[in-house]
């Protein structure tokens, strides 16, 4: 297998229903978000209608932006910070709704109340013609159905060999993901999910429907269960936390041992005008919130 992960084609609905995260061990630092329907995602491609971007935090100039991407099944937050300058410019490029294709990494934010929400950290955003957006949705639906078929096949015949499934045209990565999804989401409602894809097919066919409101269990990027001892963090603080976590992920991915070096993080933040005291405060909040841990002095990882 190559070094580059394939980008999974998923609908926003599948992301909304994904709650299981796999963190790599010491030798594998890549993180995966596992969906109930057989996607084991690091990078994804999404298509839909992208809304205008809004800044997160009150810092001037704003260094972290968020927009909502809606397809006919649901919606998801797409973010870009100053570490993805190209994506940030593209995310901010329009103040009106537009058909778009987004390439990015999935990010599961687990709040202090244990509830999670998925967002996409954009690597690339492109406004496209409506026909291109519909073609991308068609591909997403086709691959989603392929994955559902694969899950059914394995559930029906758990002992089927990977080689037999490969001959059936399923990529090795999909087979791994499907087996894991069956194990981790034994109760997943695949029939209901399959039926919900109908709205997407109508969209591909060019049938316009009223855009659904935010569905249940929709995206929350915020943590809304303040600890009694502390006031709810401000949006500036939350943006700083997200930025910090992003830096930890990047540093961990490029390091040999899979840990992010604290000094490295502080240096990067300093170059962005964030002083060590501020940075320590953010780190403190993240450790307190159980999002980061420091198993070795000076080395950070996701808890």
């Amino acid at each position, binding site marked *: 297998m*190559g070094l580059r992960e*394939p*980008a999974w084609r998923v609908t926003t609905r599948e992301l909304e229903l994904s709650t299981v995260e796999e963190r790599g061990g010491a030798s594998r630092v890549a993180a995966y978000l596992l969906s109930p329907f057989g996607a084991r995602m690091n990078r994804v491609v999404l298509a839909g209608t992208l809304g205008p971007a809004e800044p997160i935090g009150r810092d001037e100039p704003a260094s972290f932006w968020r927009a909502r991407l809606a397809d006919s099944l649901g919606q998801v937050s797409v973010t870009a910070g100053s570490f993805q300058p*190209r994506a940030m410019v593209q995310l901010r490029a329009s103040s009106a709704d537009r058909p778009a*294709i987004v390439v990015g990494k999935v990010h599961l934010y687990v709040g202090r109340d244990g509830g999670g929400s998925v967002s996409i950290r954009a690597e*690339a955003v492109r406004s496209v013609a409506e026909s291109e957006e519909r073609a991308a949705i068609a591909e997403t639906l086709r691959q989603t159905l392929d994955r559902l078929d694969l899950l059914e096949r394995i559930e029906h015949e758990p002992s089927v060999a990977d080689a037999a499934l490969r001959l059936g045209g399923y*990529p090795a*990565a999909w087979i791994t993901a499907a087996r894991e999804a069956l194990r981790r989401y034994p109760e997943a409602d695949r029939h209901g999910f399959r039926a919900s894809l109908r709205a997407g097919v109508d969209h591909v*066919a*060019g049938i316009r429907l009223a855009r659904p409101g935010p569905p249940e269990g929709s995206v929350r990027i915020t943590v809304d269960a303040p600890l009694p001892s502390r006031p709810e963090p401000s949006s500036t603080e939350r943006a700083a936390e997200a930025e910090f976590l992003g830096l930890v992920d990047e540093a961990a991915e490029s390091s040999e041992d899979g840990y992010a070096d604290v000094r490295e993080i502080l240096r990067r933040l300093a170059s962005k005008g964030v002083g060590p005291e501020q940075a320590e405060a953010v780190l403190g909040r993240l450790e307190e919130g159980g999002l980061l841990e420091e198993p070795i002095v000076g080395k950070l990882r996701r808890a």
Partner: protein
Amino acid sequence: MSDGAVPPELPEVPLREVGARSPVVHIVGRIVSVRRREIVRSTDGSRRPLLSGLLSDGTATVRFTWWDPPREEIERGTILRAVGAEVREFRGRSELVFTWKTRIGPAGPAELPRIDPESLPLRTVRELADGDEGFRLDVRVLTVQAKPVSVGEERRVVHEGLFADGAGVIAFSSWNDFGLAAGESVRIVGGYVRSFRGRRQLVLDDRSHVARIDGSALPEPARWLRRPPRPIADVEAEGGGEATAIEGLVVGLLPPSGLVYRCPECRRAVVGGLCRVHGTVTGIADLRARLVLDDGTGAATVSAGRAATEQLWGLTLADVRDRLKELADPSVLEEQLAETVVGRRLVVRGSASRDDFGLTVAPESIEPAEVDLDTAAAELAARLNRGS
């Protein structure tokens, strides 16, 4: 070399049979590659020269080691007769060792084993592996192109293209002009297979024979050249292949992309005014795009050259150089290219190979993918109805 007239006492064997008969053999072969080295003895630190390389007689190619060779240069292409060469096994392959007991003399092309083409096994493209020779092959010429190259001081023309049979496609390069034309069917005798960066290539030279045959059993070129795109995961699992088609979305652009500078001598990329081989040079401007194409099953790097990049970008090299004059930061160019290409759906045809960095495609063509939305919607609806 020692005296040319070596009386052969041992019966001569073709290289294909070396190893099977006896530990000491008598062979005639042509040096295909050769390198002079020195081994330092650990006991007294003295140096001992040796030549090593590959020897071929048209039936097989074997590695040889020649201890204490003559001081004069032994050139590639030299044909020699070796009587009393020792046979060793190394990793399952037979090798020849020339020692002080081996008598070595020059030989002529006529002394090489006479190969009766009918005695050689008929192989298929799929079976061919690196180092293979001594086979017959019936193939269709899919493409062929003459390309001038310099070999040292010499200017030569190499004919490159693709051969195919019913089971596979292989690249070829021919140092002789056999008058090959796309679409015709040929029987090849006396070619050998070489692998470079994971890409198999059939090499033809002046020892090879090409005969026109009736190709009714061979596929039409279009069957290979216009075949539908395949999942990238499948291409990757097979390690690549010729005349491969893939379809996907551009999900990224790898550096260096956009405006690049190339060495006027060798076309390598010039970094900081320096060519890796030719030192300080004035680079020639060129365009390229290293696209990451992804179809949801896997990802491949597509190395687009100038023509394809101009087409994707909608700008010519001259346009891009004009833009450069107005830009304070040339890296903006790469970002502008990325904005133009990311998210585009493309069909790419070409030669795919796999290495440590994943799958790479050297494209023959890059075209926008056509999607029929009505058909796609109807197929999806049918699947949903079936499943629920």
